[in-house]
């Protein structure tokens, strides 16, 4: 059996190394890298698009193509994350935290070097884990029932504590808000329409893409607009030397890479876990286990390495349930499942026996794709690092315009753009008020699966599921992880040389924001009390916990005075710092400039409603470059025409987006073909 497996592995490599197949794999990698760079487009879009082209290929080539594409979207998504603070896919939000500050300090090259190396090593580690676990895949997966999956998700959720840094209460509230966001829409148990406010848009819940882009990308861009400086801030970009330093960083941190990639691969096998949380869980793991973490969030290279190694390793893991049981671990795996069927391969035991060579060719495809992808990115990152020194007046409108269209890929409705803007404003305020944003996204992603598996576990086993050994293990770890930091924080605050004392109530901006959140929670509570028991129980519990934490936090804001020295230096801030150019401004100017920035975003939305998204893009970019950036008319027109032509080609021609209705097009149907 062992020898057979080895032979199959070697045979699969030989098949894959045939020049024609290598070229197909390379083509897949190129498409994947392109998709990864563009915010809003992920592996799913690419797979759906490419699947028909694999009809004519043999199974090995087809998987080389599709997997080559899927495996590297999380390699190139680092580029916009580091440069602009914009996650290229939902899997690179955690990369922003340290990658973007590095770029602002002129170290984009180092961030790229470390990120690609970590991606490469992570991808390979994921493939290796998949390869060596093939013989035990089925028994392991069969052992993991719904209660175990629930416990793993709960454990993931407990990372909220470590990801909340110095603001544990606010982190809990943010996580609660995320969980509640996850519960918007038709409830899977009873079909109750939860917080849909009479709109069809909210029936399937809030799409992750505009939420992520709003929460992480818009606040970064708003701060760049407020500071009115290039990303590099005038520092000379490190190119070749920085890159090499980054590669060295990643190699020196091999143990961290290995831990985070195996974490990524293992979590990838949990259906529903997804790239959007795995990077954060790896980041949290690094924060928890590494020493000297005070620079995390300010440009610690280990933050980049943790996030990037885990999200590339995920691919290997999410193939496990797909190959062994035909249970797709993610939406892109569902499409891949279609490819299996197309080539007459039935996922299940036979993939691990008679079709073992195909399975191994998939493993090899992941490994080779990661090598080619990281190599290509490294080769071009020299040029890319220089983007950081481009004038912000030219760069910002283009990035914004692409984000608008990217966010629209969430569910292709106007609502996506409102969600983007809403979460953008909310995220920006959170960032300014020192509210940690990662717990919110953790809540959004894990909320749905936690509720599902909770109902299944209780419905099937009542409360007996709590006595299963793995459940006990993970739930204990979760409780320790959640309560530990809280207790430590409180203890260190009370026992420090200058313990916090109570003062007269003081109304600060932070307290005002907390109050707004509390009012929103009370309003949510008022609505949910009208639902039936099953639809209500989980959101009710979450709302009450969030309210308790919120009110405590408000009291803290109002009455407690903490000396700056009293905070624990070991607990690192886990959210991106406010950049230099913003900190030196007075509040009035900041608010005026922020208002200006979000005003431009609103203007785009209004234009898009009037004349369609692509004409709006043309006008928006031209006007922004000319009037905000004070660039020449020539540059404004050239840039606007260029990006609009590119978007038309990609989104209209290749992806065939159904464009939303607009006012002019409805009024003058003859114009409709031009107003998309």
């Amino acid at each position, binding site marked *: 059996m062992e020898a057979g497996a080895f032979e199959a592995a070697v045979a699969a490599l030989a098949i894959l190394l045939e020049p024609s197949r290598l070229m197909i794999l390379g083509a897949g990698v190129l498409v994947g890298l392109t998709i990864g760079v563009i915010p809003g487009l992920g592996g799913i879009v690419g797979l*759906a698009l490419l699947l028909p082209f694999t009809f004519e290929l043999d199974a090995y080539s087809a998987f080389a193509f599709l997997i080559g594409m899927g495996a590297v979207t999380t390699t190139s998504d680092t580029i916009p994350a580091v440069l602009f603070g914009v996650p290229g896919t939902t899997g690179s939000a955690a990369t922003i935290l340290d990658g973007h500050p590095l770029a602002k300090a002129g170290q984009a090259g180092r961030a790229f070097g470390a990120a690609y190396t970590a991606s490469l090593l992570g991808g390979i580690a994921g493939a290796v884990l998949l390869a060596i676990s093939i013989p035990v895949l089925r028994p392991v997966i069969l052992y993991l*029932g719904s209660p175990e999956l629930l416990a793993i998700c709960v454990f993931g959720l407990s990372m909220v504590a470590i990801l909340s840094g110095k603001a544990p209460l606010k982190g809990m509230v943010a996580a609660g808000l995320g969980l509640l966001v996850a519960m918007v829409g038709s409830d899977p148990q009873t079909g109750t329409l939860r917080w849909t406010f009479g709109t069809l848009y909210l*029936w399937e819940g809030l799409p992750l893409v505009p939420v992520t882009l709003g929460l992480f990308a818009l606040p970064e861009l708003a701060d760049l607009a407020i500071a009115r400086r290039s990303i590099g801030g005038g520092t000379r970009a490190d190119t070749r030397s920085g890159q090499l330093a980054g590669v060295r960083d990643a190699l020196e941190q091999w143990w961290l890479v290995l831990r985070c990639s195996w974490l990524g691969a293992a979590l990838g096998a949990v259906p529903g876990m997804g790239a959007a949380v795995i990077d954060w869980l790896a980041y949290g793991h690094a924060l928890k286990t590494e020493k000297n973490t005070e620079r995390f969030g300010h440009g610690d290279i280990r933050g980049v390495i943790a996030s990037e190694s885990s999200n590339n390793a995920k691919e290997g893991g999410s193939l496990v349930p797909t190959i062994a049981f035909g*249970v797709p671990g993610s939406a892109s795996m569902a499409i891949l499942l279609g490819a299996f069927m197309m080539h007459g391969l039935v996922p299940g035991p036979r993939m691990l026996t008679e079709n073992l060579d195909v399975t191994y060719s998939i493993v090899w495809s992941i490994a080779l794709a990661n090598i080619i992808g990281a190599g290509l990115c490294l080769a071009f990152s020299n040029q890319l690092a220089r983007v950081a020194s481009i004038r912000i007046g030219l760069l910002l409108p283009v990035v914004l315009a692409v984000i608008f269209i990217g966010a629209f890929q969430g569910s*292709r*409705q106007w609502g996506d753009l409102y969600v983007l803007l809403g979460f953008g404003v909310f995220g920006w305020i959170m960032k300014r008020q020192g509210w940690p944003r990662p717990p919110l996204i953790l809540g959004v992603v894990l909320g749905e699966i936690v509720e599902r598996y909770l109902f299944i576990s209780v*419905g099937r086993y009542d409360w007996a599921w709590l006595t299963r050994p793995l459940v006990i293990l993970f739930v204990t770890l979760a409780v320790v992880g959640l309560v530990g930091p809280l207790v430590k924080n409180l203890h260190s605050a009370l026992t420090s040389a200058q313990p916090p004392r109570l003062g007269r109530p003081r109304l600060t901006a932070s307290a005002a924001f907390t109050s707004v959140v509390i009012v929103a929670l009370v309003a949510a509570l008022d609505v949910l009390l009208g639902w039936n028991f099953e639809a209500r129980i989980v959101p009710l519990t979450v709302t009450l916990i969030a309210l308790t934490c919120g009110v405590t936090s408000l009291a803290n804001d109002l009455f407690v005075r903490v000396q700056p020295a009293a905070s624990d230096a070991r607990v690192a801030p886990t959210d991106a710092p406010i950049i230099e150019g913003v900190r030196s401004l007075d509040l009035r100017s900041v608010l005026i400039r922020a208002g200006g920035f979000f005003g431009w975003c609103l203007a785009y939305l209004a234009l898009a409603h009037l004349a369609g998204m692509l004409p709006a893009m043309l006008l928006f970019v031209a006007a922004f470059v000319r009037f905000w950036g004070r660039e020449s008319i020539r540059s404004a027109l050239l840039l606007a025409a260029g990006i609009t032509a590119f978007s038309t080609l990609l989104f209209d021609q290749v992806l065939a987006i159904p464009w939303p209705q607009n006012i002019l097009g409805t009024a003058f149907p003859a114009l409709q073909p031009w107003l998309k």
Partner: protein
Amino acid sequence: MTTTRTPALAVRILLLALLTTGASAAADEVSDFYAGKQVRLLIGYSAGGGYDTYARLLSRHLGKHIPGNPTVVPQNMPGAGSLRMANFLYNVAPKDGTVIGTFGRGIAMEPLLSGVGTQFDARKFSWLGSLNNEVSLCVAWHESGVKTMQDLQTQELIVGGTGSGSDTVIFPIVVRNLLGADIRLISGYPGGNDVLLAMERGEVDGRCGWSYSSLSSTRGDWLEQGRITILTQLALAKHPDLSGYPIITDFADSENELEAMEIIFSRQVMGRPYLAPPGIPAERLQALRRALDSVARDPEFLSDAGQLQLEVNPVSGEDVDALLARIYGASDAAIELAASAIRDSDGG
């Protein structure tokens, strides 16, 4: 005899000539209209699911069969379990035959059974037909000890389901409510395959609402080796492969119950439905209907479908029209019974 026959023949030939020129004039008009145009095929779901796979395959072949050979472009328009697309197709999409769509098989009965969020009259859509007349099954895992529907009168079967409103949730509730079967539904699994995995690991004992085509292509060995037992077929007519197994309508006790079953399981006939907005020009509707019929016989299409393991068992647009007319004409008592049968009265 001959004297009477000759004019009749002449008249017939004349009529035939008139008809064919008339028909070919209409065909020319249709072909002129579609030549060089794009037909958008809207999919009410995001990429990756069954509806998406069928529609993308269809879009590769349909253009060849429409006069004028337009390009057919699939577009995903997800939202509200494809209800958004249904509302869009009915109220907003151009009514000229350049936009067609596919949505959930239960959508056409939604106005009758729930009416929440529906902004259309299902009978007024221009139905092109359905690519498959699905037969779904209730199956029990071999370790459950349940062998027949009768066993469920005395023995409990724990059945796994996905989301509220899906076949895997509605069908077991209907079987429980109409037949008094002792079914305990555990819903909330992310997808149908997750239910099968749960069955394999002993978390649930069965699945009600599993299309036979999917079963035979992915778990055919389970049936052959007796790892699962088919309890009943859920459809309006038996699958040709499964003539030995009972069908849900066999268990109806009254005319009323039979009618209610027809309302509920008519969605199976519209397994992979294709339709256009209401009121598109009649000759274009004809052309689109015939195009769908002929795609379903096209050997290239069938070979691709076979490769993807997609079952093709077409139903014409006229048949869908007739079915909807019958269902919407059902007695109030039957509609009331159907609406209450799909409701989870058990509360859990």
